[in-house]
């Protein structure tokens, strides 16, 4: 039984890992396609039908490129940087509840790697150490632009983590739990948290943009000012890891946003038509991935719409607007709980 359990967990870990990598790979393709479509272009369409093999071509290109390690940089830390970025990006998927459990022969198989009771905090902790990948890499490059990118990344992360944490606190006050599985289960029907926490949602999604270093908050790597930011000196697959980690982060952020605010695997009204728990579970998985894909698209949509912030504007937004707003949100949520006794 124990070994069966371990095998089952190993299988689900491998599946989540591979799906995450696959979605991240195709996010690079989707990003280029979406960017092209939003700008009246066609985008990559030469590799395979509709350019669908483009991620593979990119991956091969990344592997084949010459690997350059600057002579004066610290070699160990230089390699450690992208490794940490990739590791932390892949670690977050462990607590996301992908769907309701599958029941086969009376045995319940939860579609989640682990339901630890500190789910949100785990995500938060992993995200907060993710910045080390950028900082260490930027510092070890021994390049002024890289260092500036690393500094920007750290200051930005710290600033937006506070607002993000405070907006989550309001959510936790409402749900009464920090296990992602329970939060997702609570939002069945129309009880999506976004309807109860609209302000918190806006703060959270903006901070998620900042934490993922996505435009309009991509100051650590803004090519117009810093050449390539923290990855100026990187080449070959180490650069690929940084870029890839960003897309995995985007996928995980989309998953977390849909779990926390958009009901996770829940879909309103679906319970009226389907009653079999296994079919419901599969459908939940489909809905969840639909939501995730929408948010990945939303990330890209924002990227090609909103221009980059200036650095002082970024800090102004983080410290003087979002932190007071999220404290206000906590107070409002407390009042709401008091009045409606939810």
């Amino acid at each position: 039984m124990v070994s069966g359990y371990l095998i089952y967990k190993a299988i689900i870990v491998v599946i989540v890992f591979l799906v995450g990598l696959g979605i991240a790979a195709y996010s690079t393709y989707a990003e280029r396609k979406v960017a092209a479509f939003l700008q009246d272009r066609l985008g990559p369409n030469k590799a395979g039908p509709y350019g669908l093999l483009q991620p593979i071509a990119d991956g091969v290109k990344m592997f084949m490129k010459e690997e350059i390690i600057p002579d004066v940089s610290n070699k160990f830390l230089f390699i450690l940087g992208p490794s940490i970025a990739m590791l932390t990006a892949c670690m977050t998927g462990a607590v996301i509840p992908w769907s309701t459990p599958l029941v086969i022969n009376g045995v319940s198989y939860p579609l989640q790697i682990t339901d630890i009771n500190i789910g949100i905090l785990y995500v938060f902790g992993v995200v907060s150490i993710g910045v080390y990948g950028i900082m260490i890499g930027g510092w070890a490059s021994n390049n002024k632009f890289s260092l500036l990118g690393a500094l920007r990344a750290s200051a930005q992360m710290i600033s937006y983590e506070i607002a993000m944490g405070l907006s989550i606190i309001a959510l936790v006050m409402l749900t009464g739990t920090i296990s992602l599985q329970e939060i997702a289960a609570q939002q069945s029907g129309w009880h999506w948290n976004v309807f109860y926490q609209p302000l918190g949602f806006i703060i959270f999604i903006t901070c998620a943009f900042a934490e993922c270093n996505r435009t309009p908050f991509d100051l650590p790597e803004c090519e117009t000012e810093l050449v390539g930011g923290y990855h100026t000196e990187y080449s070959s697959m180490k650069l690929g890891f940084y870029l890839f980690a960003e897309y995995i982060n985007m996928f995980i952020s989309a998953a977390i946003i849909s779990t926390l605010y958009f009901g996770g695997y829940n879909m309103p009204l679906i319970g009226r038509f389907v009653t079999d728990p296994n079919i419901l579970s599969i459908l939940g998985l489909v809905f969840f991935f639909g939501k995730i894909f929408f948010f990945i698209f939303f990330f890209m949509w924002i990227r090609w719409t909103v221009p980059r912030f200036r650095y002082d504007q970024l800090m102004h937004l983080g410290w003087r607007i979002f932190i007071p707003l999220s404290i206000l949100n906590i107070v409002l949520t407390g009042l709401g709980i008091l009045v409606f006794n939810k």
Partner: protein
Amino acid sequence: MTLYIFYFLSFLAVLSAFMVVYSKNPVHSVLYLIVTFFSIAGHYILLNAQFLAAVHIIVYAGAIMVLFLYVIMMFNLNKEAEPHKDAYIKLAATIAGGIFMIVLIGSLKGVEHIENLNTPNQSAGLIKNLGNVLYRDYMLPFEMASILFLSAMVGAVFLGKNELK
């Protein structure tokens, strides 16, 4: 199994703590300190205090150490920029460190008399029990501490105001 993990984590914690002091490059010191924090977070998990472990990583490894690293990178502190310390200061530091070590050894001397080192309640570190303790038994100090933090945060936001006269 748990015992071996404990020994491994303890070894890692002590070794990296030693390396914090030993390494000449301040950035390396900070990185070793982060390793120390992680191994301590591992100890928390061994004690079944997941909440403490997570908060420990978020606050120390995720925030404070990032700020440390930020400052060190910002001022570009490295071997060449390190101010020269003369022999008296080194001697004084050695004596002070030695005395501190004696104090530590002295305080650990009576450790075999402490019985029942294991926490009686294995789930004491879980978030529900921790919340109950904090919000029931230690309500007042906890709220006072949180108001202190809130005022610190308001102060930080206020300092960011550029029209400050």
